[in-house]
Structure formats: C-alpha cells, structure tokens
C-alpha cells in the first residue's frame, strides 16, 4: 500500500463549498444520535468521516439522503453554478436530484441483473417504450475512461467479485450525475490491492471536480487518502483536522476520547491438540465457499486467528466446523479422534461450540423466548426434558442463572429474543456456547456490529475460555482484532490457508491480497 499524502491540503481553502450541513440534530428516544453537527464539503475534496460504531456516522448520512428527517438544522447543496440551495429534507429523490450519490456498505444491486441494467435502473422515464442502451453504454464507457473505474457491463452482478460490484455502485452514482459521492466503509470488503485501486479511482474523480465523503474507521487509510478529517464521537463532532497535520495517535485519541486500553492478555504455552484438519478440501459452487487442502491444528490454551478479506473461503471453513457441510476430502480430528459424521449434532457432541457469523440468521430464533434459545442446542439433555416433555421449571431457572452470569439484559427470559439488542443477543449466544465448556470454540466474526463495550466483553470471554483450556478458532475480517487476540495467525485467500510466521501487519496485508509471504 502506498503510504504518503498524495493530496496536500493546500488547495482546499480556496475551493468553493458544494455541501453544507448546518446544525443537524437527531434524537432517537433518549439517545441524541447527532448533536448540532456542522460540516462543509469543498469541491474536489476528499473528506474523511471517522468514528467508532454508534458514533452517529450512519445517522448523519441517512439524514443527508433523506432516509431520516432531522429534528433541527438544514442542509444546503450547490447547483451547477455554485450557488447554494436548501435541500428538501426527508426525500431521497431530492438528494439524488441534487447530485448526491451514495455507495452503501451493503450494496444495493440486483444480483440477477447485468451491471448495465443496474446502472440504468431509475435513470430513464419509466414509461418510455424502450431503453436507450447504446447511448447509456457510451456515457458509461466515457466515465470509465475518465476515472479508471472498470467493470464488465454485460455480466450479471451475481457473477462479479466484490470489488467489481463496488465499482458498479460508484459507476451508477456517477452515471446519475453525482457531484458528491459518499462512500460508507468502502474498503471493509476489499483486499489492500483493490483498496489502492479504489483510491486511485477516487483521485481521478476528484480531479474531475467530484467531492467525496469517505466514512471509515481505519486510521491509516484516512491518513493516506483524505485531505481533511472530521471525527464523530457519541453523536458530537469532536474534532476536525487537516490531514497533513494529523497522525494516527492524534485521531485515535479523538475517536475514543483517550488512549485505547490494550486487551490484557497473558502468554500461555499451548496444550494438547484439540482440532486437527488434514488436507481438508471443500468444493463449493464458487471460491467463496471452497477450501483447498487446508492443514490446521489448534491446541488447548490457544487462539488461532484466520485473517482475510471476506469471501475467500472463511464460510466454507466455518460451515464445515459447524457441521453444516461435509468435506469432499481430507480429515477432521477432535481430541485425536477422527470425525466420521459432519452434522451439527455430531459437532456439538464432539465438543465444538459455535458462535455463528450471522447471529440473527443462524444464532437465534427471534420469535422464541430467551429461555428456549438458551437450551436449543441440548434438547435431549435430561435436565431439559423427560420422555419428551420439557421441564419448564428447570429451563426457567437455568435461563435466569445464565442471564445473570453473562449479563444478558432484556425484557425478561420469557420474552422473544428479537427484542434484545445486538450486544445482548451475542451475550446470549456466548452464554449458550460457554456453558457447555466446549473443547473448541468457533468464533466467526464475533464482534461484528457490536459497540465497544460489548466487543470488549466478547474478547474478555474468549481469553477466559483460552485460559480455561479451550482451543479457539477466531475468524475475523478485522485484522486488528486478529492481531490483538490470536496466538497464531493464518491468512485465508482464495480458499487457501497459509500460516503467517510473524504478526507483521504489512506482510499479512500482502498475504491477504494473495501475494506469497517472503
């Protein structure tokens, strides 16, 4: 990755404003999500909007796009002549018409449609009798040449890589004549190489006069590619700094308020092998769901971290260890015994505890109660049932104890789990997993979407389990998390697992992009 400041902050002062947010406030119940935020964006500028999860970044952008109506404040946008006009609030169409384009973290693309169709969507009058595809293609090709963004136009989105999809999203915004582009965590899904390409493209776009707001929490990117940094914390704008004057330490302090405490972590000699994968191969329908010839051994008292950009085979690895798929070849041993059946009950029986990646989809049954969700993995145990009848009293007592021990907060043990917050749902899953003292814990993206407090709690519990003798397989896209928690790090790329011999950021970054470690 190119380190260094490509864009000196020199020019920003002279340029005209294209957008200004004036005193925007938004309250949800008792939480003030945005508190009197003032922000201006200059033409051709790359402005980084920085903040932890829950700092209010998304709320601010949702107001800009008309998804939310601000409680107070206004937004002004410049027209072609540079004159500022107030934006009609609460209407996405108004934001689009004013030339604001957004690339969401979760792409808003229709997978069964081609790139071209996705770009065309909404750009023509609905009731014309045919598309003007030729003209559209010409315009898109021109944009591609100017900015260096490239994507296959006639392939279905479903066939494209994540990086290509993102480029289609950006092309879509530019095709709709966006003058202001908002990118929400654009590099979260990219390899370092792809990210570099993206930033080159952004540079080309700003030369064309486009202005970019770039939401991120990765300090090094922000430092390398923005001209100005704005930091949000607890809904307030707490800092604004010209990038040239900033360094990592300075902005990190702005973001969290103080120096981040490192997770306390003691050195510990690994014990006996718990999980042993030998030349494990899974042939999925594509590389996202495949794993080739993987060798991996996890010992007791050890956390093994799997770093990698999402969609490189992590889900195949997680699914096979969860018992959801059967490997095509190779072997899996638990505590020295070779497994023959690959089903969720068999894995549970072998002593595998699973923290699934998508907790709402795989981890909980939202309409069922907290107490039922806590016993769902051990329905044949004798303290839960006799002759098929549930022991309601035991189940309730059990739920109360676990909720107290793991600090699961919610309306009550008999209420539906979906009423709990994300952090409390994750704590419930932790309670269920740790209660059975598993030999192996699969922690797949265990802190994704959690606030700092809940994420810290998850890390503490994982370290505790390690102390108590469990082996832990930690799969995470967050390299910082992997580096902080893991004893050994493997990198997964295109379905291949490779060990990282030292925990060096740059080396691992290169490996994540598929380059051989030196």
């Amino acid at each position: 990755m190119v380190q260094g400041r490509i864009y000196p902050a020199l020019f920003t002062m002279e340029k005209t404003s294209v957008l200004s947010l004036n005193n925007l406030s938004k309250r949800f119940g008792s939480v003030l999500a945005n508190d009197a935020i003032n922000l201006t964006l200059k033409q051709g500028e790359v402005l980084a909007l920085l903040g932890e999860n829950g700092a209010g970044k998304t709320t601010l952008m949702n107001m800009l796009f008309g998804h939310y109506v601000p409680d107070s404040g206004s937004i002004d946008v410049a027209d072609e002549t540079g004159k500022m006009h107030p934006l009609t609030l609460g209407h996405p169409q108004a934001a689009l018409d004013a030339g604001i384009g957004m690339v969401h973290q979760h792409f808003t693309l229709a997978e069964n449609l081609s790139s071209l169709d996705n770009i065309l969507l909404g750009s023509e009058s609905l009731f014309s009798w045919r598309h003007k595809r030729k003209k559209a293609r010409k315009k898109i090709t021109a944009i591609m040449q100017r900015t260096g963004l490239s994507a296959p136009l006639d392939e279905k989105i479903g066939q494209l890589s994540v990086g290509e999809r993102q480029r289609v999203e950006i092309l879509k915004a530019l095709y709709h004549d966006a003058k202001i582009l908002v990118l929400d965590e654009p590099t979260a899904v990219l390899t370092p190489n792809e990210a570099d390409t993206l930033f080159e493209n952004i540079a080309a776009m700003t030369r064309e006069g486009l202005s970019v707001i770039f939401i991120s929490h990765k300090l090094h990117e922000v430092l390398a590619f923005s001209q100005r940094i704005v930091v949000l914390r607890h809904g307030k704008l707490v800092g604004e700094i010209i990038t040239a004057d900033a360094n990592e330490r300075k902005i990190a302090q702005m973001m969290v308020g103080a120096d981040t405490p490192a997770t306390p972590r003691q050195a510990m000699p690994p014990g006996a092998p718990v999980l042993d994968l030998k030349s494990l191969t899974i042939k999925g329908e594509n590389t996202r769901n495949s794993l080739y010839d993987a060798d991996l051994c996890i010992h007791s008292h050890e956390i093994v971290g799997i770093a990698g950009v999402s969609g490189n085979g992590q889900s195949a690895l997680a699914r096979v260890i969860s018992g959801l798929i059967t490997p095509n070849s190779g072997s899996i041993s638990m505590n020295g015994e070779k497994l023959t059946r690959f089903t969720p009950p068999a894995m549970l029986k072998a002593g595998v505890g699973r923290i699934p990646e998508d907790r709402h989809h795989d981890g909980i049954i939202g309409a069922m109660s907290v107490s039922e969700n806590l016993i769902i993995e051990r329905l044949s145990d004798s303290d839960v049932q006799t002759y098929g009848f549930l022991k309601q009293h035991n189940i309730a007592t059990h739920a109360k104890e676990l909720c107290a021990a793991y600090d699961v907060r919610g309306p009550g043990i008999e209420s539906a789990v979906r009423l709990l917050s994300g952090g409390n749902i994750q704590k419930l899953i932790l309670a269920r997993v740790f209660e059975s003292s598993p030999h192996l814990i699969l922690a797949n993206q265990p802190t994704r979407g959690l606030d700092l407090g809940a994420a810290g709690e998850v890390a503490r519990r994982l370290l505790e389990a390690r102390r108590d003798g469990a082996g832990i397989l930690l799969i995470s896209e967050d390299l910082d998390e992997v580096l902080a928690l893991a004893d050994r790090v493997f990198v997964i790329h295109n379905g291949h697992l490779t060990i990282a011999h030292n925990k060096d950021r740059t080396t691992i970054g290169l490996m994540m992009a598929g380059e051989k470690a030196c």
Partner: protein
Amino acid sequence: MDILNILISDSFWAASLRIATPLIFGVLGALICERSGVLNLGIEGIFVAGAMAGWMAVWFGAGLWGGLLVAASVGALFGLLHAVLTVPLGLSQHVSGLGITMLATSVSYFAYRTALPNLSSPPRIEPFQPLDIPIISDIPFIGAVLSQQTAMTWLALFLVLLVWWVLERTPLGLAIRAVGDNPDAVDAQGLSVYALRIGAVMAGSALMALGGAFLTMSAFDSFFFGMVNGRGWIAIALVIFASWRPGKALLGALLFGAFDAFQVRLQTEVGAFVPSQIFLMAPYVLSIIALVIVARRAEYPRALLKPWFKGQR
C-alpha cells in the same frame, strides 16, 4: 384413429391452443406478480371473478369487449387488495392469496345468485367467434389451426409478446425485475418499491381475470360453479416450470394444452378399458411431476415472498 393421426390433425392442435389460452393469461399474470416479488395465490379466485364479471357484463348488455374490460378491472381490484395486504403491510403472501381466492370466489357466486335468482338452466350469451383472418387462414395447417381461434386467443398471444417486451426491453420492466430481485436497489434509485409492486400485482391480476373471462366468453357461453377447477393453481405450477419467462410460459401452456387435448382424444380410443377419471387426473399429476423436475433448478426471483419495509435495511 391412432396416435399419429391425432397428432397431425389440425383439430387437435386447434383444441390444444384453445385449452392453453386461459392458462397463457394465467401464467403471464402470475409471472408479472412474481417477477415483482409477490406470489399471488388469489389467482384461482380471480379466475372465477373474471369469468363471472365478464360474463355478467355481457349479459347486461356491455358487449364482448366491454365485458373483457369489466373482467380486467375486477381482477385488478382484487389484485389491489392483495397488493395492499402483502406489500405495504407485508402480510403473509400465502395466506392473503388464499383469502383473496376465497373472497373472490364467494363474492362471484353470491353476486351471480343474487343477480340471477331462480334460474333452472344457466343463461347464455353470444360468445367470441373464431376469427377468420384472410391471409393467415390460407397458410396450410397453421392456418387451419389458427382460424379456429377467437380474438381472445389472439389477444393472449399478443400479450405474450407485449409482456416479454415490457419486461426485457423497457425501463418499467427493468424496474419490475429489479424490485423482485433486490428492492433496496430500486429504493436507492428513488423509485417506489410499493408503487412498482402494487402496480405489477394489479396488472398481473387483470390478466388472470381475462383468463377466467375466456372460459365464459369464448370457450363456453355461460357461467357455472366450479368451472375454473384448479386452472389457477396449474398456472402457478407452470410459472415455476417456465422459470418466470414469458416465452417459456407460452411453451408450457401449449404443452399442457396439447397434453390435455391428447388425453381427451385418447380417452375416446381406450375409454372402454380405463376409467375416465384417470384422464381427468392427468393434468394435475402432470403439473406436480413438472414441478418436481424443475424445482431444484428453479431460480426464484430472489425477493419473492420477502416483505420489504421502507427504511428497514
């Protein structure tokens, strides 16, 4: 007459096309709804409502084309009800659709009985007559098949072309396909997910009603209870078989019509040895078999059955 003779007779193919016509309307209608992401199990009832309303309008003097207009409007109205329940309110598309079927069926029967009480034999109207188009009827074989068809069959064939064109070649069709695949994509472009889906369900339901109207205004000349007899459900199965494509839908309906016409003719040949019910059962059994064969490969519109609420990502 042996099997080969059946297959090369123009009357057989004319009958196939005639039997296929209501299914073409039905499959196209269901296809439009499902392409936008809404399953419409109201189809069976909307068939009944279309059959009754169209016929009734003609009976009261609206004229044949007026009758079709009435049928389509009634269908669109039931479609609107289904769409309101399932799109902005996001209720179960299965249950709502079955509710529409029950409602449309009972409203039609009640209205028919109330408007025409005390009738011993069902009253008749003057239905659509076969359309003799000079140049076409001169084509050998095909001319003979087509000249036995009424204007409604021609309308159905034209609609196949129109629906294909709209879905594949126009911005509106693109928006409908997109909303059935990923409503967020449509919403992000400032288009209304609700309006697109409601519109698609109404249009689809209007076509379903025309399928029903064909029964009372072209195939027969009167309305009687139980005349739809599962055609709507067969159309739902055929949509899956046709992988949501208008061209394949036409093919599926024609194959189905041919099979049905064939079994009727076969029945006269071997009817003495085989109970007639075996033949009556065949179309339904065939639909299930077709469904089982294609089910694994079927690529459902990705947003089908999934409710979408504005502002909830």
